[in-house]
């Protein structure tokens, strides 16, 4: 392990660092004490240090950056891929950011990446690619590839531009190697999917996955080739987004790695909010104390009604949030379908609940009230609440979106609690109406 190696001589540490993969280095780096980190910095080459920073989370990378002076920071940036460098720079304190940006060349690739929003395709782009002109013959093209290979991330795909420097397609390296003069790039290139730099990154990522593309070309509005988004970057971004969706549905703030108390406090705001919105439930229920006192058996079926409506709402919510986070079209049609689905499902489980209640109340001897009317109240309330559930679950995220609040804050538990309020009002309300006289 790195920790032990750091006790050895400089030469040995160097030899160790030469062979370790950036990811492994980053993993063991996290376990070092401050002193050990200091020692590492004195030995490690700029190139390897840049590699290490790349594999760490951007905020930790920025912390490392802050330990060094501007000149060293610039050297590190030079060794990094532009997209990784841009991530780090954006994490630095504002003053440091500006100072570092000042030192970079005007044409620096990093600068062009910093201007993009995090959710735009451009922000995940690397601009190191081999460009071929359409008119090149294959020999010249091969030469270009060999020349530029050391500088770029990959040469498996070569990108073809026309006379006006506009992107028109790609050449597979295999095809180029097999081609012989007098063929030109024009004869062997093929069309290829691409993304615009301002496209939402989510869309670009699903294109990469669906089309199984290792290097997705990114162009500007005028079809000038700006760079590529690689599959491995897409994979990481996808995982982050998927995790977020999942966490949101579970009313869980972004997972953090820290101690018990800190993590607990991190999660508690959601729980507190949920507790706060469940207070009205108690208030609403208290309005119906009379009927509850009169027909105590009603209480027994209350979890059934709240629970079912909550389940239906969660289903609809999940589907709706997914569509919103993927920017899919057809929300209206989807909402309409969800509501119809709720009606059908509500009817079926409503009837089932009616039967169950009827059987149960008939068997239960302690009862004086008419089992049939209790079963009717339970069945009808269940149907009505399950009918309302999808309406609430579709409209709340849409309304939040309208107010530019992240719709995903409407998590499963949040919606379920809201549904509880309507479920209870409906249930006891109906009971008062239909059984009130008993």
């Amino acid at each position: 392990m790195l920790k032990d190696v750091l006790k050895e001589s400089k030469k040995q540490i160097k030899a160790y660092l030469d062979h370790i993969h950036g990811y492994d280095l980053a993993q063991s780096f996290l376990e070092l004490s401050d002193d050990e980190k200091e020692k590492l910095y004195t030995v490690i080459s700029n190139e390897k240090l840049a590699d290490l920073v790349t594999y760490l989370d951007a905020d930790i990378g920025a912390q490392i950056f802050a330990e060094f002076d501007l000149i060293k920071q610039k050297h590190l940036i030079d060794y990094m891929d532009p997209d990784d460098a841009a991530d780090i720079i954006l994490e630095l304190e504002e003053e440091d950011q500006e100072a570092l940006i000042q030192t970079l060349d005007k044409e620096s690739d990093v600068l062009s990446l910093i201007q993009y929003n995090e959710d735009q395709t451009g922000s995940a782009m690397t601009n190191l690619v081999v460009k071929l002109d359409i008119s090149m013959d294959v020999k010249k093209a091969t030469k270009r590839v060999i020349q530029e290979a050391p500088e770029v991330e990959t040469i498996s795909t070569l990108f073809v531009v026309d006379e006006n420097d506009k992107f028109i397609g790609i050449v597979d390296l295999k095809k180029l190697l097999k081609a012989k003069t007098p063929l030109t790039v024009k004869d062997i290139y093929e069309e290829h999917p691409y993304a615009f730099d301002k496209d939402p990154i989510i869309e670009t990522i699903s294109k990469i996955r669906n089309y199984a593309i290792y290097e997705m070309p990114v162009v500007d509005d005028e079809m000038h080739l700006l760079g590529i988004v690689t599959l491995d970057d897409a994979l990481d971004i996808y995982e982050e987004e998927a995790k977020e969706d999942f966490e949101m549905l579970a009313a869980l703030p972004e997972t953090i790695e820290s101690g018990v108390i800190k993590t607990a406090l991190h999660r508690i705001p959601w729980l507190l909010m949920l507790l706060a919105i469940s207070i009205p439930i108690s208030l609403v229920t208290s309005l119906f104390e009379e009927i509850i006192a009169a027909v105590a058996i009603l209480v027994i079926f209350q979890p059934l009604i709240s629970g079912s409506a909550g389940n239906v709402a969660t289903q609809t919510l999940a589907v709706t949030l997914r569509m919103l986070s993927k920017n899919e079209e057809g929300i209206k049609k989807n909402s309409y379908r969800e509501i119809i689905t709720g009606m059908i499902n509500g009817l079926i489980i409503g009837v089932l609940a009616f039967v169950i209640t009827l059987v149960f109340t008939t068997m239960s001897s302690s009862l004086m009230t008419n089992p049939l009317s209790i079963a009717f109240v339970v069945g009808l309330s269940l149907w009505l609440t399950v009918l309302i559930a999808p309406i609430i679950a579709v409209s709340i995220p849409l309304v939040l979106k309208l107010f530019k609040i992240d719709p995903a804050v409407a998590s499963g538990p949040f919606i379920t609690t809201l549904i509880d309020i309507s479920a209870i009002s409906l249930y006891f309300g109906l009971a008062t109406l239909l059984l009130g006289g008993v």
Partner: protein
Amino acid sequence: MSRHINFKHSDALLDKVFDAIHGYDLALLYPSLEDIEKKRMVDLIKDDKLSDMFVELEKDDQLELITYLSQSKIKKLITSLESDDLKEFLEDLDKETQKLYLKYLSKVKAKTIELLLTYEDDHAASMMSTDFITIDQNMSVNDATNKIVTSSKDQDYIDHIYVINDDKKWVGTINIKNLIIARQGQYIKDIMEGEDIFIFADDSIEKAIDIVQDYDKNAIPVLDHEHHMIGIITADDIFDELTQDYEEDYQKLALIGDHTTSLTSIQRSKQRLPWLLIAVLLNLVTVSILSTFEATLEAVTVLVLFQPMILGMAGNIGTQSLAVTILGIHQDNFENKRKKHIVKEISIGIFNSAILATIAFMFVYTLLSILGSQSVNPGDVAQVVALAIFLAMSISSMMGALVPLTLDRLNIDPASASGPIMTTFNDIIALVLYFGIATIMFL
């Protein structure tokens, strides 16, 4: 992407239209076509596009598509498929049909596919492809380049070339980039990287996902235990696998099946109804247990006011720790962190339950004092509620962590824990605690 194709166009024009659409999009389109349209499409599109589309289709559509093809076209299609895609297509067919298709292949290739079909589902080898290139470490750079140019097939992965020694054991990898820029006169051994990033055939798929992701590799070699290289796992397949994992987790948490936006209301009902029905039936258990507390309920009706709150809060904290645990299981070397994770989640659960119970106590006390409730003392009820919330939440968060981990141990998908059984269980615990404590307190 164009989602609508006008089949009234001439063949020549249609041909152009198909040319411009990616195989994946064609595959999305295919199931919605009329039989005649399908046939025309299959006739018109180019061979490589046909195979691009074919691999993206569902099994039923694949089988149907084949019926539209001539013998020679079937042969072209089958031979052009990547080995992992071909294996996936053959996997669920019966032995006889498999043989029929394997006949189209060369003897060597057929053998490889037969071998691929023998790997177990959750082993890394089951998702590997055999379309890779190996070269001997003693070859010169020139010979190696020639070999790649002349012998590589269209579907071969050549971004990395794999190097073997005299015993045919894998010893290293060369990025094609480094091979291209190597000088003449150099040997493969001089320029290869002797890294040790690989996976054994019988390692888990999860491990393969981790390795590809962590080391940012486009492909990793698959080895048998003698270090012979038997295949590669590529990052695009890993991407599919990862997506599937997350989709499934999400769907299970939300109690929805394999949902797509195109489903109609009736299809959606059909798919979700089983979950809902199970939940309703399970509620029957809750109902029966609750009915045993009828006496308490009748005596202290005010208890009802706080029942939804207790059930809700227990459910919420359970969902939180469940979600954290399911996500945690996806992480690298989670095995080693298992114990730590359990202890941590339980401590967090107890901590947060205590805080919320305190707040709930204050709320209940205030509310009852304002309502000026008759027979019972607000302090007593508040105590009961607070104690029930504390215990129910602690237990629910504990279950949220323990159940998925146990399922994982038993090789059941941990996300199955997010179903109605868990919810019902939590409900029952919470209710029994609440009314149990109340019964002791008031009766």
